[in-house]
Each structure stands twice: as C-alpha cells, then as structure tokens.
C-alpha cells in the first residue's frame, strides 16, 4: 500500500484532527464563541466532504492501515453519519451554549474529540484501537455531560456515568486481556483461538463474557442498562442526543466489525447470551418507558429497547453479514434522525429556561404552541414507534427482514412485543403534543430560528426517507457490497 493512498484514505481523520488543533489554537488565541463555533462546524463539514476524496481513493475493498485500522466504505458511511450527527449537535450546541453556559469554547473541543473517537471505531480492527476509541468518546462525554456550571443534575449525571463507565471499561479491558491470553492476537481477525475450536477454550469464553458485558454497558443493554436514564436525564439535552446517537452508533460499528472479523458468533454460547440480552432489552426497555413521565428518561429507556432491536442485525452477521450491515446502517440513520430530533426539540424548547423542559407535560399542546417543534416531535415519536411515512418504519422493516433471514423467531417475537409496548408510550407523546393547550400555557416565543430550522430539516428527512428511501437503501447496499461483505 502506498503511503499516499494511505494518507488519502485516512484524510478524514487527518482533517478532523487538524481541525481540532485549529480550534484549540483559535481558542487559545482568543476566546470567541462565534469563532470557535464556526471553526468547529467548518471542520465537521470539511471532514464530511473529505470523504469524497477518501472514497475515490478507496475504490472497492478495504485498506489496512497498521494492524489497528482497516478502512472501507462501510466505515466511511458510519463516519459520515457520525459527522452529520455531530454537526447537528454543534448547531444545537452553539445555541445552547450561547444562552445557558458561561464558558463555551471547550465544548467544541470536547465535541471534536468525541467525534474523532467515534470516527476511529468503525475502522478499528484491533482491541487497542477499540478501547482507545471508546474511551476518547467516553472521556469527552464525561466532561460534556457535566458541562453546565451551576446545575446539579449534569454533575450528578457526569459522575454516575464516569464511575459506572469505569466499571464497564474495566470489564471490557479484562475481557480483551483474557481473549488475548486465550488466542494470542488482539487483531479481530485472529482473535479466535489458534486451533479454531472454541470448545473448552475457557479463557476465550470468559474473555468474551467480560468483553460483551463491557460492550453491553456502552450500548446500555439489559442488565447493564440501569445507568442510562439517570445520565440521559441529567445531561444537557443536546449532549444526551450525542450520547444516545454517536457514542452508541460508534460502539455498534466496532462490535459489528469484531463480530464479523472475529467470527465471535461461531460460538453458540456468545450468540445465545446475546440473544437473551437482546430479548430482555427489548422487553424491559420498553416496559421501563411505559409510564415514564420525563421525556428524557423515556427516550433513555426507549434507547435501551432500540439497542436491543439492533442486536438482531448483529446476530445476523454470522449468516448474512451484508444484510446485517445494511440493517444496522439504515437503522442507525433512522435512529439518529429521530433521536436527535427528539432531543433537539427538548433542547430548543429549553433554550430560554433555567431548567430543562423535560417533563412530558411541558410539551403539552406543543403542536399548537410551537408548530414546528411540535410537528417534529410528533414525527420523531411516530418514527421511533416504527410507523410508516417515517424512516422508523423502514428501519423496523429491515429488522424484521433481518430477523426472518436469520430465522431468529424468538427475537422477532420479542421485537413484536417490544414494539407493541413502545407504541403505547410513543403515542402518549403524540397525544400530549396534540392536546389542546391549557389556557395558562404561554406561547413559545423567542426560540432560535437556527434550532427550529434544523429541527424542521430533521423532520423533513425523516419523512422523505420514510416515503422514498430507495436512494438511501441503494447507497447503503452498494457500499456494503463494495466493501466486500
């Protein structure tokens, strides 16, 4: 592999890192919110655009860059997704920062760091890059969660996340160590024990138990889900949005890679454990959200369930990795859109408030008080529930297709049950939003137009992909095929 090609292929990473440095230097020279924001957004856009170059350099197949990374089209797709999400977060964040926070600039640095971490993961093919990526995202997030100065909830959320994430990371690390001890390689592709059989390879198995526990924590799957609502609740909405989308998506991207390259699911044990986790997550996540009255907590619980759904795609990689990848990417696209929109609505509504407006009552009659935000919230709820006209439906359709393709009937059963419960509480949001507003509810004025504009854009995207997803599906399919899955 020529070095030039390698640089071209790695261009997005270089651009992002460069941008990070530029922003840092900019902040160091003069603390100006606007400059930092513009630079950040420019960096993110530039990184996104740099994928065009990278794609063309990549061609078909994959490029291995040191044992740690393997860049292919799928990784780029994930990257673009994360970058766009980060871009949305940056836009919302700039509004949020300018109105509610005193020290603003560090947020952008943290955001860029976290984004970089998340870009690392889809390309990671080595435990070292895996843990580094996960932890870069994690460390940045600790600070982002606890970013607002005076409020207590963010601090509490940050600490909780830090401590529990620490436990999770150690489990992950311990698991890697044991897998390494068992197999002799930390590269995904060679991480199966050398004789290929798993029977009696207890180091490998224990390692996987610890590893998947750690991953399950990061993905907030049952029984490691319990931190999710508290952290989602305490963090500023927009950070929650990032946490719920990019950090989850990135972890998913990397475990996908691990599952495919490492052939982990050849082990019936792991597959079995993951199936159970998936089923339980779908059901318990949804049950927990059932009567929840705090919107952020509700979305947190629902994200548990969504991650459970996504495990279906993961479990499919053993038999049909291409479809699994398609599923996970399309699902993530949908999930990102709707989650970001939901948290974006909360964030936009809370712009002028001391406390976040996260109770479900605070969106009562929203459609009439603030039509754009209300409509987007409704679309996003409907989409999360997986009802047609929105991308959520296609996402769910893919899951069904994947599940049937893999013959995972139990999981499909759980998916149906989970979705059924889910419809109830998503619909509660819808109902609240279309309720006749009480007479004393003040009209929502003075909300930032950029925020509303982005919300509207997200809403339109959900609808557009919900009606004509063809191009998106084709793109994903082509890239996945080109990447050799």
């Amino acid at each position, binding site marked *: 592999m020529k070095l030039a090609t390698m640089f071209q292929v790695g261009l997005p990473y270089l651009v992002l890192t460069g941008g990070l440095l530029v922003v840092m230097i900019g902040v160091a020279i003069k603390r100006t919110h606007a400059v930092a924001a513009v630079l950040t957004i420019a960096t993110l856009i530039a990184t996104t655009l740099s994928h065009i170059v990278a794609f063309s350099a990549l061609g078909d197949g994959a490029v291995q860059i040191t044992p740690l990374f393997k860049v292919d089209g799928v990784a780029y797709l994930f990257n673009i997704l994360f970058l766009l999400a980060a871009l949305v977060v940056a836009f919302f964040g700039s509004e949020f920062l300018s109105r509610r926070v005193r020290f603003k600039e560090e947020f952008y640095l943290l955001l860029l760091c976290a984004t970089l971490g998340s870009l690392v993961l889809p390309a990671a093919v080595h435990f070292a890059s895996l843990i580094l990526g996960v932890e870069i995202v994690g460390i940045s997030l600790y600070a982002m969660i606890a970013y607002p100065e005076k409020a207590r909830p963010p601090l509490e959320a940050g600490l909780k996340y830090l401590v529990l994430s620490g436990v999770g990371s150690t489990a992950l690390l311990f698991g890697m160590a044991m897998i390494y001890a068992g197999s002799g390689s930390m590269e995904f592709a060679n991480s199966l024990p050398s004789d290929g059989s798993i029977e009696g390879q207890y180091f490998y198995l224990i390692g996987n138990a610890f590893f998947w526990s750690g991953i399950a924590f990061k993905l907030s799957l049952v029984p490691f889900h319990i931190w999710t609502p508290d952290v989602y609740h305490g963090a500023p909405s927009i950070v929650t949005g990032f946490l719920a989308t990019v950090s989850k998506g990135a972890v998913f991207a990397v475990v996908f890679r691990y599952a495919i390259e490492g052939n982990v699911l050849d082990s019936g044990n792991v597959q079995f454990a993951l199936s159970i986790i998936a089923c339980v997550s779908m059901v318990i996540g949804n049950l927990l959200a059932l009567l929840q009255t705090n919107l952020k907590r509700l979305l947190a619980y629902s994200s548990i369930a969504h991650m459970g759904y996504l495990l279906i795609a993961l479990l499919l990689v053993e038999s049909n990795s291409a479809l699994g990848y398609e599923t996970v990417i399309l699902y993530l696209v949908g999930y990102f859109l709707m989650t970001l929109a939901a948290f974006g609505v909360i964030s936009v509504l809370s712009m002028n408030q001391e406390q976040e407006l996260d109770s479900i009552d605070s969106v009562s009659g929203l459609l009439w008080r603030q039509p754009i935000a209300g409509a987007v919230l409704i679309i996003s709820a409907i989409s999360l529930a997986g009802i*047609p006209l929105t991308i959520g*439906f296609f996402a769910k*359709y893919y899951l069904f297709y994947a599940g049937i393709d893999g013959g995972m009937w139990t999981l499909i059963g759980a998916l149906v049950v989970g979705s*059924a419960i889910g419809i109830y509480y998503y*619909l509660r949001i819808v109902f609240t939003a279309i309720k006749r507003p009480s007479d004393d509810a003040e009209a929502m004025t003075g909300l930032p137009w950029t925020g509303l504009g982005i919300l509207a854009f997200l809403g339109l995207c959900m609808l557009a992909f919900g009606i004509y997803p063809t191009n998106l*599906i084709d793109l994903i399919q082509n890239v996945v095929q080109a990447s050799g899955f």
Partner: protein
Amino acid sequence: MSVMLLILLLLGAGVVAWVSERVNTTLPNWIALITFVATTLWVLVIWFNGPDTDGLYANLNREWIPRFGIDLHLRVDALSLMLIGLTTFLGIVAVVSSWTETKTRHGFFQFNILWVMAGVIGVFSAFDLFLFFFFWEVMLIPMYFLIAIWGHEDKEYASMKFFLFTQISGLLMLVAIVALVWINYNISGVLTFDYDVLKEANLDIATARLLMLGFFIAFITKLPSVPVHTWLPDAHTQAPTAGSVILAGILLKTGAYGIIRFVVPMFNEASKEFWVWGMSLGVISILYGGYLAYSQTDFKRLVAYSSIAHMGFILVGVYSFSKLGTQGAIITMIAHGFSTAALFMMAGAIQERLHTREMSKMGGLWVRAPRMGAVTMFFVVASVGMPGLGNFIGEFLVLIGAFQKSVVLTVFAAIGIVVAAVYGLSLMQRSFQGVPNPDVPKMHDFAFREMSVMVLLMIALVWVGIYPQSLLQMTAPLLSELLRPTL
C-alpha cells in the same frame, strides 16, 4: 395512473384545506366537500367507462424500492373500485355530518379526513404487499388524530386503544408479509412483494398456516371480530361524527377486504382448513356483538357493537368458500358502510343537539324531530336486515352460502337476525319512541344539509337492496380468482 392521481388529489386537497383555514373557517369544509364530490364523480366516470380487457379499471406499476422488489403497484379491479366508490361517497357523508361539529382547527380536521381517505384508497388498490401494508398503517395516523384531537371525553383512552390494537396486529402482518416474501425468495430466487407472484408462492402447508394467521389476526382486529373487537366500541363512541362514519363505514371494510383479497387467495389451502374457525368466529361475533349491543345505553356504543355483529357475517360469508358467501360478504361491506355511516351520523346529530349519547336521557324524540325519527327508523330497519334494503342482501347471500358449508353454524348465525331485531328496535324505542323526555331541550330537525346526505344514503341502500345485481355482476368475474382453484 388515475388511482394514483386520485390519491394525490386527496392528499393535495388535504394540504390546501389545512392552509385555507387561515382564510376562513368554513373554507376547509367546502374544499373537502368539493374534493369528495369530485372524486366520487370521478369514480363514477371510471365505473361507467367500464373495465379494460383484463377486467381492470386502472393499473399502475412503478418501481419503488428495487432492493426488495417493492413496487408502486396500484391496481383497481371491480372489488377495489366498489370500495373506492364507497370511500369517496362516505367522504361526502363524513364532511357533511361534521360540518358544524368541529369548533376548532377546521383545516387540520379536514386535512385528516382527506388523508385517511387517501390512505384507504391506497389500501383498496395496492397490489404490492409492502405498499398495502404501508397504506394500511398510514391511514391509521390521521384517524388517530381525528379521535385524539376532536374526540369526546375519553378520547385519550379510546384513541390509544384503537391505535394499539390495529398497530400490534399490523406488526404480526408485517412479520407474515416479510416471512412470505423471504420464503418465496428462497424458493424461487425472486425477491418481490408483488401480489400476483406471491399468490402463486409454493408454500408448504405448515408455513402457510402460520403466515395466514399473521394476516388473519391483523384483519380480524380491524374487522373486528371477537375476541379482538374491544377497541371498536371505545373508538367509535369517542370519535367525532366524521371519525365514526369513516371508521365504521370504511376502515372496518379494510379488514374485510384484506381477508377477501389476501388471506383467502394467498393461503388458499390453509384457509380452507381454517374455515371452521373463521366461521365460528364470525358466528360468535354475530351473537356476542348483537347481545352486547342490546346491553348498551349509549347510542353510539350500541351501533358500534351492532357493527361487530354485522362484520361477523362477513367472516361467515368469506369462510363459507362459496361464491354466494363471498358475494354476500362484499355486499355486506357496501351496505353496512351506508347504513352504519347513517346511524353514526344520526348519533352525531343527536349529540350535537342534546349533548349526550345516553339513551336514558332521550326518549320520544320523534315528536320533536319526526324527520330524524323516520330516517333513523329507516336505517335501523335496514341494519336489522329488512329485505329490499342492502344489508339483507348481504346477510342472505352470506347465510345461504354458509348453509352449504355448515348447517349448524348457519343456524346460529341466523339467530343473529333475531338478536338484531331485539337491539335494533330497542334502540329505536329508547331514543325516538316512548314518552318525550321533559328534560330534553327543544331540538331542531334535520335541515337540507343533513337531509340531503341521508336521502342519498337511503337511495344507495335501496339500490343495493333491490338491484344488487349491478354490483354482483361486477364482482362475479373476480370470484374464481379470489376463491382459487376448487369451486
């Protein structure tokens, strides 16, 4: 192509109606009314132009999502056309019936009505399973809005229940659809959602049974049949008048349509094995629905339960696997659409005047509003199954068809006719006859607006009642296709 235009027209009119709210609050009503009248006329034109050589009135087949072989396949044959006609016609009824009912957000109200209708027309004309499911779900959302925003006191509960039941059963259908497609893909190597292809899918019987159940549950939930009927009384009761009219008149028919169009032809063998269950469920619905209808004291609830009973006839008819039964089911769909729509409109009119649906607070209304009394009498008599009116034709054909299949079940179903008389007349007695309730305020009788629609409905019912052949001959060529090989 024309059907796509029809759908787009309704969708577009919905948006226009919504926007026009800003100009004038009655403008949305007019826009919706004109749209429905226009579409009804359009359908009539298509109707009279007659089918092409394949028996189709319209056909559109474009790629939608080639990745999964999903096409935008809209096709209108006689059965579809009839139901589309019913839809647009009841659209007029719905708009007129709630002309003065909504006090707020007229535009959005009409928007939802128009969009429901668009979705329903999609359901009736989709010949791609994915597309069908898409429309199937889409039509629920505006319906949900109609109940949840403009519903009565218990709207949250009712709308939620409605949505949950139909969605959850829909999920089962989605699973069945995808599984069917996937299995067909594995057998034939062709990934497609096309109705015509999947109909010929070579399934082994055990799989077919399971898949059929997925469809079947979704459809009987929508129909609805006992034991998944419990959403219906609540939804009907709480919905605004237009909502009830649409719900009872059209949305229930989508379930029946689904059974006729999909369950029976696609899973022919499995369905044939299943007949005794299907018919039994129908019979139970007839008896249980009728029986519960009698127990009700709420005007709308009573009518709602009576719908369950009537829909039971459809199940009985379809699962008799005879031409007679199927034709009867189709006629029942149409006739029930007319009669129940009228009764719900009546319930709405009464509620608008008296602010109650409780029949104990009515009584003797005939004296105050003889026209309403006469009209109600007409439709009650129709729904009781009076020969000469549409419902009888349907029920008779169903029963005579079913009789060839199972004497016992038919006899039980026929008992439903007696039960119908019991609740139907008790409805009449408790609301319009008897001593005029002194607490009832003065109420004005039907005026031109409401009466004109009622007269249209009456004419329609009489027409179906005495000249059903006009419909039967349209669907007759379809029967062999719907009932598949052995007949």
